[in-house]
């Protein structure tokens, strides 16, 4: 190293040392905050857009894949205390979930109950797509089997009577109400027995108190099926060429 360069370096080093000794450590002196809404004020970024495009195309294609067919419009508002879509959802979940439950417990599910508000869309006459399944069940709700005492099932009927909505029930149930009391109540063609326990299939959301279905709380036993509500819907549609469902008066008011 030539002496000139060394001298320069040494001066620099000394200068640096002086600065670091004399300049005190910086401290937080002020804070400013802002909420920035992400909206059309901001252009899209073409690099990001182009990156997303193939994923979006593929998702759109998959979502538009026809997995089944319905000859009728299906919705949740075509009956008073039952609906075509509600009956279909309850029955298909029974069909999909009972083998899972039976394999684990050697017991059968007695019936299914969901909530009317949980049906998030309708299906028009024609092809049924994956998108329909995602619209019907956008949440990641899981299917669970809840063992209820007869007393809790009575509470459930009381809830259904008071709420007066077409909460989806599966076809194993025949519940006819007359002047706020039970006229007919059979499960699997057998009269309801208050001294017996029943296995009810529902979603984890409702079991945990969703829609104030409090009769599901603290059950005799609770069985998680590790089966998503939406997966059951898709699995059923995929194996079913043409969906058949109807209003069969499983739940109605006589008067």
């Amino acid at each position, binding site marked *: 190293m030539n002496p000139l360069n060394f001298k320069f*370096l040494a001066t620099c080093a000394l200068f640096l040392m002086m600065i670091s000794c004399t300049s005190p450590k910086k401290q*937080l002196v002020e*804070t400013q905050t*802002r909420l920035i809404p992400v909206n059309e004020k901001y252009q899209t970024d073409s690099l990001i857009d182009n990156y997303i495009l193939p994923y979006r195309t593929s998702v759109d294609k998959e979502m538009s894949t026809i997995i089944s067919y319905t000859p009728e419009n299906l919705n949740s508002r075509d009956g008073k205390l039952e609906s075509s879509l509600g009956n279909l959802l309850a029955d298909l979940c029974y069909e999909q979930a009972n083998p899972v439950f039976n394999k684990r417990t050697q017991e059968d599910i007695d019936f299914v109950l969901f909530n009317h508000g949980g049906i998030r869309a309708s299906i028009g006459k024609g092809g049924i797509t994956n998108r329909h399944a995602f619209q019907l069940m956008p949440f990641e709700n899981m299917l669970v089997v809840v063992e209820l005492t007869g007393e809790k099932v009575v509470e459930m009927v009381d809830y259904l009577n008071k709420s007066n909505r077409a909460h989806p029930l599966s076809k194993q149930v025949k519940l006819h109400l007359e002047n706020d009391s039970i006229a007919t109540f059979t499960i699997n063609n057998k009269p309801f027995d208050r001294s017996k326990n029943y296995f009810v299939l529902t979603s984890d959301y409702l079991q945990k108190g969703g829609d104030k279905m409090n009769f599901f709380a603290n059950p005799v036993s609770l069985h*998680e099926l590790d089966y998503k509500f939406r997966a059951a819907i898709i699995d059923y549609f995929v194996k079913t060429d043409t969906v058949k469902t109807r209003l069969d008066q499983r739940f109605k008011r006589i008067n």
Partner: protein
Amino acid sequence: MNRRNFLQNTGVATVGLTLGGLSLQSFSSDSRTKITILHTNDTHSHIDAFDANHPKYPNQGGVSRRATLINAIRKENPNTLLLDAGDIFQGTPYFNFYGGELEFKLMSMLKYDAATLGNHDFDNGVDGFYKQLPHAKFDFVNANYDFKNTILDGLIKPYKIFKKEGIKIGVFGLGVELDGLVLKQLYKETKYNDPIAISQQITDTLKNEEQCDLIICLSHLGYAYKHDSTTISDLKLAAATKNIDLIIGGHTHTFLDKPTSVTNVVGKQVLVNQVGKYGINVGRVDFYFDSLKNIKSEGESIPV
């Protein structure tokens, strides 16, 4: 160029550069250093913006627009950190189809600096998270989950330290109790530890050992729980600890117009922020640092 000359030149150049940087900081009229923190939470796989006819959030959100916004701010201030408080996964078919791959890839393209895990980030199990981790070019921080007996062992750091223009910023993460929120077979042997005790310990390390100038907590505990006085929340965490400057929260999808200022155990103000969900907003907090001689008023100025 021979080796000796090369070394000399490099040496001089380095000194010159350092000197240039320092003199700028120390002698320019504005001696303040500005650290910008940008943050999101609960983006829930919302990659595309909402449709123009969406009943609640028409034309809002979208990763592509977020990129434009963030790039503009980084250009304005290179001393910017981009952070996320968890629940990156679940909410659109992008997650159902790709398991979070696109979410992590886009966050990497946006140059996120760190994120913490939310409960929904366990929706495909610790294995599903592990599988997507190679797509994340940023670190996940969490201090109160013990992943020792899971596949994530050693992959999640309790905290990370960033240095921006001489300012040391410590960022640590906290997660919500998973039991009851996530199925056990998904979170497996992940152990949940008390967020307050862990925070005391971590912030002590960050403040006293690591000598951080700024301590940020990425929390997925939730902002507050009205009807539950026992559940830990960001507001409670802020009040029960010390050394934290900013808590960036998530989980409760809370839309705050401005951060909440909470007094901590030693009487200092802690900012608690959360910006809703689905990438509808980006939060921004600018921290100004200056040498003591330049402080005009005593104490901290936090606009509320």
